[in-house]
């Protein structure tokens, strides 16, 4: 793992991977949208609005996956003081917050015709809303300190503490018998969903995942560059004009 702690090596690797994940996102998203919007049956109960599911469910998955990524990266950052892990956590939280927001909005749009209400204080919905607030708190804490490393450490502890919410979201539909329908894909044995609907759902899920990876790589790369810029600025401020700033920059980046 520490092999990738070197920012230069990570930058090279990320630059090599990113076109592939970006291309995969485009292809999968195109296929998923085609199968989801055109070549899949309408539900016998929900009608055409079942198609909202192809955006809603993947964004819910990714909202939780992004939080797990963030918590895992924070854990790595705290335990091994891995320099890139903090940047990964920082890069993941706005993306996860966006996925959570999309999930809440699409769920609300679907809920109005189906449940007859935009919002219900159901266990799954409430725990998802808490997840959104946790993301907001994480972002706020990251930027609350003058010293960015201090913010990263504090936010890391918060990310780990907030992780208790993830299993609650996952199992909320099993523990509380409320409005939101229980899991239909990740069931033991056969998924309780028609294969014609499962195909676009899976394609969209994969597309969202590759999209997340692409955005995450982009954001981590720009974070590394931002750290570099900051270090250069600092050395420029502290150094006498004309001294060898280049060496100092290299030193501060290790």
């Amino acid at each position: 793992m520490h092999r990738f702690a070197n920012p230069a090596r990570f930058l090279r690797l990320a630059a090599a991977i990113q076109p592939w994940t970006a291309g995969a996102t485009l292809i999968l998203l195109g296929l998923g949208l085609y199968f989801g919007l055109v070549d899949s049956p309408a539900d016998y109960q929900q009608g055409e609005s079942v198609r909202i599911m192809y955006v809603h469910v993947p964004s819910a998955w990714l909202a939780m996956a992004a939080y797990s990524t963030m918590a895992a990266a924070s854990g790595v950052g705290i335990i091994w003081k891995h320099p890139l892990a903090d940047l990964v956590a920082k890069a993941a939280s706005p993306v996860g917050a966006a996925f959570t927001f999309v999930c809440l909005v699409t769920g609300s749009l679907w809920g109005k015709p189906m449940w007859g209400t935009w919002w219900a204080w159901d266990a799954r919905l409430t725990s998802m809303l808490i997840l959104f607030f946790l993301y907001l708190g994480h972002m706020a804490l990251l930027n609350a300190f003058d010293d960015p490393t201090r913010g990263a450490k504090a936010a890391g502890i918060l990310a780990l503490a907030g992780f208790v919410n993830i299993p609650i979201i996952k199992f909320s539909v099993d523990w509380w018998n409320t409005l939101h329908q229980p899991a239909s894909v990740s069931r033991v044995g056969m998924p309780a969903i028609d294969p014609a609907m499962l195909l676009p759902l899976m394609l969209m899920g994969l597309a969202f995942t590759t999209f997340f990876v692409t955005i995450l790589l982009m954001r981590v790369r720009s974070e590394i560059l931002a750290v570099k810029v900051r270090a250069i600025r600092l050395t420029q401020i502290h150094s006498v004009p004309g001294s060898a700033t280049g060496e100092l920059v290299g030193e501060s980046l290790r």
Partner: protein
Amino acid sequence: MSRLAEIVRRDLRLALRQGSDSVMVVTFFVLTVVLFPFGLGPEANLLERTSAGVLWVTALLASMLSLDRLFLADYEDGSLELLALTPTALELLVIGKVAAHWLTTGLPLIVAAPVLAVLLHMNADGFGTLLFTMLLGTPTLSLVGAMGAALVLGARRGGVLLSLLVLPLYIPVLIFGVGAIDAAVQGLPARGLLLLLGGMLMAALPLAPWAAAAALRQALE
């Protein structure tokens, strides 16, 4: 154990001598609850139905009110660094401080709650459960809040930030606390909900001081 008692005694003595956080917290609690009959109207049925929620939400806000002082005063005058240098584990220090915080804010809230419940026309069947949920819930609030208070040490706008960090984590306590009271008022068994509240306390008791100590350590670096 004697060290833990020493920390609790120190914080209690400070709280008693430096003026009364507890009085302020209870006053806030009473005043905010009294606002509700004015806001909702004095209709007894409505107040009775909302009483559990109103009491719990205001108690939660009141206990959050004094949280930012939990470590801040010691952090600013440097005594937190001295405390961290003593052989006492930082986790133990956190537990001691949380215990003192609960004794000065949580306990007065519990004492004030039944009086306010009478003012809100709460059904008498709910009184026992109200006390019991508060007794199980407020220590959890103090424990989780201590983690938030430790995280925002030295941050800009620490007080507002603290509420953003801590309130989402308070929601489960609120849900089960109010749920248990409502169940008791309606004559349903509240045991399961009370057990969940107890379980949350048991989970927060080891985990929150651990996280708070980690946050304090990086604040003192």
